[in-house]
């Protein structure tokens, strides 16, 4: 009895003495859902925060607050001074970098984001063509909550395997990895809409080039394995014997979905270095223009071969483009490190080799089926 009384006493004492932990009441905090970083004057950083607020009419509102300071965390206190609610970043979904800033380097920001226990590893990162401030501040007639909209736009495209994934974790992973560089989607304001316009290529955390949105498929093809995804591509007319077509034309347009791929990479020569890249693609034909009878096995074999060849050409082109920009977004360096013993690979060392790298691409294409009508 005595023992219990003392326990209860102590509990009460603790509660009354300590009060409670710092409260973060949901309705009292302004939840930052999206942050845009831009380059300000004199090396300052200009931060644009999209803050979700809930008003009493059961409606969510979005406030866009911009401030400028020397450090990214410093802007946060400044933003706080302009908001009626305490700004919290625990529900942050996306971080955008202005192109100018990205070209100067995002490494520091990635580092700061990773350091914070408030940030989730699944925050999505992207680059904005032009300034992120102008992208965020524009009043889009069809978009209520721009933070939510951009996050869902990116997420949907990443889930559908149309765009390379760029979560904070993956960007951090690549940033600290000696044999792989960061790649992020590029967003662009297109009149009253926002669209993904391409892929930004980085080297040591600095943006060095970009690929078109369509090329991001090929980047992804080399980086990861596909399970869903959709591809629209074009083969030159002379790749196929004209006998296959009723009305021979100089280009054939094709759409595939869902694509399953399996890739195999081999290091053939350590010194140069030289890779053999073998990719097996299995897909369903969705659309083909002009008409080709895919009911005949012979036609299919020829078509498959032509597509395979065309795909490998495209892949080689994309690899060459990134080599030109000196950005290894594919992770060839990572493969080199894991194959060559005691390579002691550093970023500098790999970038020295990367320029000289040779990749022999070979694509095996298999047509699985073609809809419900032949």
């Amino acid at each position, binding site marked *: 009895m005595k*023992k219990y009384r003392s*326990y209860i006493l*102590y*509990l009460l004492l*603790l509660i009354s003495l*300590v009060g409670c*932990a*710092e409260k973060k009441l949901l309705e009292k905090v302004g939840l930052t859902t999206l942050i845009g970083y831009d380059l300000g004057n004199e090396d300052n950083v200009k931060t644009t925060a999209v803050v979700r607020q809930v008003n009493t009419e059961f409606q969510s509102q979005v406030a866009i607050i911009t401030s400028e300071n020397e450090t990214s965390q410093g802007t946060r206190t400044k933003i706080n001074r302009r908001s009626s609610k305490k700004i919290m970043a*625990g529900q942050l979904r996306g971080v955008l970098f202005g192109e100018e800033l990205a070209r100067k380097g995002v490494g520091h920001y990635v580092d700061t984001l*990773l350091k914070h*226990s408030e940030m*989730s*590893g*699944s925050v999505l990162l992207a680059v904005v063509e032009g300034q992120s401030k102008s992208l965020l501040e524009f009043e889009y007639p069809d978009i209520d909550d721009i933070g939510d909209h951009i996050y869902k736009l990116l997420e949907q495209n990443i889930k559908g395997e149309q765009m390379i994934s760029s*979560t904070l*974790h*993956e960007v*951090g*992973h*690549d*940033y*600290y*990895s*000696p044999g*792989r560089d960061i790649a992020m989607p590029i967003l662009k304001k297109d009149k009253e809409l926002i669209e993904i316009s391409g892929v930004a290529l980085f080297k040591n955390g600095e943006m060095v080039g970009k690929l078109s949105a369509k090329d991001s498929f090929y980047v992804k093809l080399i980086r990861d394995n596909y399970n869903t995804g959709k591809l629209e591509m074009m083969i030159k007319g002379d790749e196929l014997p004209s006998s296959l077509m009723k009305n021979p034309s100089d280009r054939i347009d094709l759409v595939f979905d869902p694509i399953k791929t399996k890739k195999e990479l081999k290091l053939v020569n350590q010194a140069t270095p030289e890779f053999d890249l073998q990719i097996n693609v299995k897909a369903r034909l969705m659309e083909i223009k002009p008409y080709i009878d895919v009911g005949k096995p012979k036609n299919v074999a020829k078509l498959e071969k032509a597509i395979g060849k065309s795909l490998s050409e495209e892949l080689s082109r994309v690899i060459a483009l990134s080599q030109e920009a000196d950005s290894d977004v594919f992770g060839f360096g*990572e*493969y080199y490190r*894991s*194959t*060559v*013993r*005691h390579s002691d690979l550093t970023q500098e060392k790999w970038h020295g080799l990367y320029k000289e790298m040779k990749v022999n691409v070979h694509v095996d294409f298999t047509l699985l089926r073609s809809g419900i009508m032949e």
Partner: protein
Amino acid sequence: MKNSIQLSQKSTINAFLLFFIIHTAQIGVGIHGFQRIIYQDAKHDAWISVLLAGIATHIIAFIMIKTLEMYSSNDLYGIHQDVFGKWIGNFFNIIYILYCSAAFFSVLRNYIEVVQTWVFPNVNTWFLAATLLLIVMYTFTGGLRVIVGVSFFSLILSIWLLPMLVYPLKFMEPRSLLPILEADMSGILKGVQSMTFTIIGFEVLNVIYPFIKDKNNVRKYVHLGLLATTFIYVSVMLVSITYFSGDLLTKTIWATLSLFSIIKLPFVERFEYIAVCFWMLIILPNLCLYVWAAYRGTIRLVNVNATKFVWIFSLSIFIASLVVKNRTQINMVNNYFGQVAFYVIFVYPIFLYVVAVVKRKFKSHKEQIE
């Protein structure tokens, strides 16, 4: 043996429960962030270090049981008194008690640090220490039965955390593990030594041994428990190496919690906030078993009852936890403690076994002559 422990049937426990005791005594705060420490030594072969450390625990446990079996029903404190005589034996006992207290303190302080970093940066250290000590005291006064019960429930109720490792697998890069054995042997062995802080806890066997009902099953369950721990550590290490890239892992202080941060369930996000708080249940057996081990030693030296002991013990730990203020001090404590623990846990049992065997041979030889 003159100072062996006589127990009634009721106060003994099943050997089967040793599995839970050993396993939960090992897993505690170390698992939050052991990856980076081992990775610094052994790079992407860190998992080999973990595996080797696991094997080392099996060997040490084997020797411990051998030593204990020589004294059918006695604990380490009694063996000390028997092997080294009263004065030197008691000196060793004091060292062991201090070791247990240090282990207790280090677990407590590290957990408080994690809570303060992830969840409540503004809550005072002393408050967290007081609440944790309160719970430990409540368990301790319930006796060994309750302490073992806490270990049992701690494992059963936290087993669901293991499948959560599947989520980070989505971002896995299996090639990060290659080439295997790139690090040199010294690096890997250094990693094994760094593992000490994380993998200790099974030494509680030294104290709990006399309380086991069916002693012929001890070996089986102790090794099963160690095997389970090794399995968990190795799998966490493998997932971490493939999930983080090299330099990122060396910068991530609590890699396991960062692993959890990627988990998104339909009804909950940011899983690590829940995991950090839930960890209270996981460190509870750690704390309770250490304070109990210290108590078993103390009653050999001075006559003190359990309630009085736990009050004095908690009070001194409480004060100590206020002295250690920041991260650097905590890391310093961890480092020193890890080094001491390495000698207490991995070196000393071998020495004790040799001395005990020699002494026994000598004694029987003497008896034969007489």
